[in-house]
């Protein structure tokens, strides 16, 4: 065990992945010598050479196109998109290509070895283009897996699982926590399961569901609620696609209430999918409407960031409203 921050945990996972398999590559803008603008790939070029860890030209559609080709060829590419806000130029390569590669070929070709890493999320005074949480865009795309870790331990285990998973995975890294989140992480190899939610705290009155950096926020709100005698069950969804309906539904059967919180704007965000599914699965158990506490339906603003965000106070208020419905 070692103390690591989230970046170190990611760097450590990449190191293990590159050491174990010569065909594993890390690349993206500034990923090579410099180790990435957040330094997630720091030291990898020195260790594994310029052929396996390198800077690419500044073109996201090219990075993912190149990565798709590498994965189809049998290499194991780990492509970095510098900020999730800049993943959209690669949207066609991801949604029309990555996601449909295996299906359209009748399993003759696939890009299952591909992992796309990208820092996402707000709360860092990043304004419109350094704050977005675009997971819902990808969740509507069969063929992709979408994973979001909440802390260093989760990050390492889920990233290693993503790299080894035989399906393309988009791995969203909560950049607000890159240095802020520190914890015990085994130095050895381990994996955490993709597609499984984790019940982080047991509770009885309401289930709270989130992922990534938003976990901190619902945990804080749950503490406030505890002070008022409300017992929250806290769940980390971890995988957005496919997502673990069973764990969430079981929790809601028990508590009778659900609150989902994410950073992205509420309309057509992934909380909508969860609410739609759970009202179907748990209709007779629900004691109040499923609450969504999410970003306001605007681009991500700079100076009104606090007002825009789904913070712990908004979550706390919604918990009370839901429990007292």
């Amino acid at each position, binding site marked *: 065990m070692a103390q690591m921050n989230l970046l170190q945990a990611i760097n450590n996972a990449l190191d293990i992945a590159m050491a174990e398999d010569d065909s594993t590559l890390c690349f993206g803008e500034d990923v090579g010598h410099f180790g990435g603008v957040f330094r997630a790939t720091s030291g990898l070029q020195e260790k594994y050479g310029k052929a396996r860890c390198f800077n*690419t*030209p500044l073109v996201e559609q*090219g990075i993912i*196109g*190149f990565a798709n*080709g*590498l994965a189809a060829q049998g290499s194991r590419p780990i492509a970095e998109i510098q900020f999730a806000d800049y993943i959209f130029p690669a949207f*066609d390569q991801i949604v029309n290509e990555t996601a449909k590669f295996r299906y359209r070929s*009748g399993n003759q070709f696939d890009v299952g070895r591909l992992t796309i890493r990208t820092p996402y999320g707000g709360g860092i005074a990043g304004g419109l283009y350094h704050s977005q949480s675009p997971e819902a865009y990808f969740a509507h795309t*069969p063929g992709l897996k979408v994973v979001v870790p909440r802390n260093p331990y989760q990050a390492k285990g889920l990233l290693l699982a993503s790299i080894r998973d035989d399906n393309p995975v988009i791995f969203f890294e909560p950049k607000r926590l890159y240095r802020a989140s520190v914890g015990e992480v085994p130095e050895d190899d381990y994996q955490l399961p993709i597609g499984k939610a984790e019940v982080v705290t047991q509770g009885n009155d309401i289930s709270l569901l989130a992922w990534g950096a938003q976990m901190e926020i619902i945990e804080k709100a749950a503490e406030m609620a505890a002070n008022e005698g409300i017992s929250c069950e806290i769940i980390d969804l971890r995988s957005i696609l496919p997502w673990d309906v069973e764990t969430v539904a079981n929790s809601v059967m028990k508590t009778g209430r659900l609150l989902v919180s994410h950073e992205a704007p509420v309309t057509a965000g992934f909380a909508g999918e969860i609410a739609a599914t759970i009202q179907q699965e748990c209709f007779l158990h629900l004691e109040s409407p499923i609450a969504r506490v999410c970003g306001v339906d605007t681009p991500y603003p700079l100076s009104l960031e606090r007002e825009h965000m789904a913070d712990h106070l908004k979550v706390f208020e919604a918990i009370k409203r839901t429990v007292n419905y």
Partner: protein
Amino acid sequence: MNTDIYKEGEVVHSPAFIDGHSVDIPVLKILKQDGTTYPNAELPELNQVEAEKVYKALAFHRVLDERMIAAQRQGRVSFYMTALGEEATTVGGAAALESRDMIMAQYREQGCLIYRGFSLEDFMNQLFSNEKDLGKGRQMPIHYGSNEFNYLTISSPLGTQIPQASGYAYGQKLQGKDAVTLCYFGEGAASEGDFHAGLNMAAVHKAPVIFFCRNNGYAISTPSDEQYVGNGIASRGVGYGMKTIRIDGNDILAVMKAVQLARAHAVEHSEPVLIEAMSYRLGAHSTSDDPSGYRTKEEEAKWAEHDPIARYKSWMLAQEWWDEAQDAELFETLREEILAAVKVAEKIDKPPVEDLVTDVYDDVPKHLQKQLDELKEHIKKYPEAYPFTAGRI
């Protein structure tokens, strides 16, 4: 780390534009339409056995296209795309490669598959999207793919294969495969952002990929002079610092020569090469298209005179590697075989309902299995509404 950020050229003190049109790009021609070669022309490596294989592939291609156009008119197949007039670009390209080389095509490159030996049955099964289709009946006709023959399954979105080819070739190099990737695209697709991404990345990362532009004058109805105003696609090679060559795309010996040369260069220097083959799409864009709305019969007639197959046949005849009797028999046999194969393929069952949910992921995840189970229950209730699958649940 670099310290000189650019190679400083000549220094001038009064301004003058470089004229974009001024690059001179010669075009390589080896074979004349009458089947003779230009004096001093450097021929590709090609012995009689291979030459005959090439000719047979061309013939197969022509007959397949003719038959399938007819089959589409009869409503037997929903859609088709010919490569009429452009067959030399693909058959010649494949013939110049090793079989281990990867081919990533746009959609009009069935010639490569024919040359490599993709079976008539496999063509038909794809066109009829039946349960024997290697692609499991999921894509529209002509979206062939073959792992066995190193031909990546066609994807409709244009240009996407270009940066993929760069990555694929980079992987080949990294793993010491002694193989290249041949990446085809049209002059229309070369306008996509992915073209720019793919060529630049291949050049920077030194990937052994041969970019092969089929410039056939049109992208559906859009003539090439509304697609670009530079000197074709070859002139872009300059910008990527890439070795580039323009060839007569209706001259299969020029195609083979250029691809052989490009392959040797790509392997030896681990560098991409750009080939632009000038040709003409003699047929409609697809069976959904009617070119009379955007071009003249005269233009088509003019280009029909440059038929690449007739040209190569004349050469084969002149070599005495082929004769008219053989030719008549070959075409007759091909017509019969293809017609027979149509009749077989159209009777083969459609894929089973399970194929709806497989291959989305490596395994069928829970939610999809649930959707499949519900679907099967549903189909059982309304078997007549789902005739292709109901019988087999």
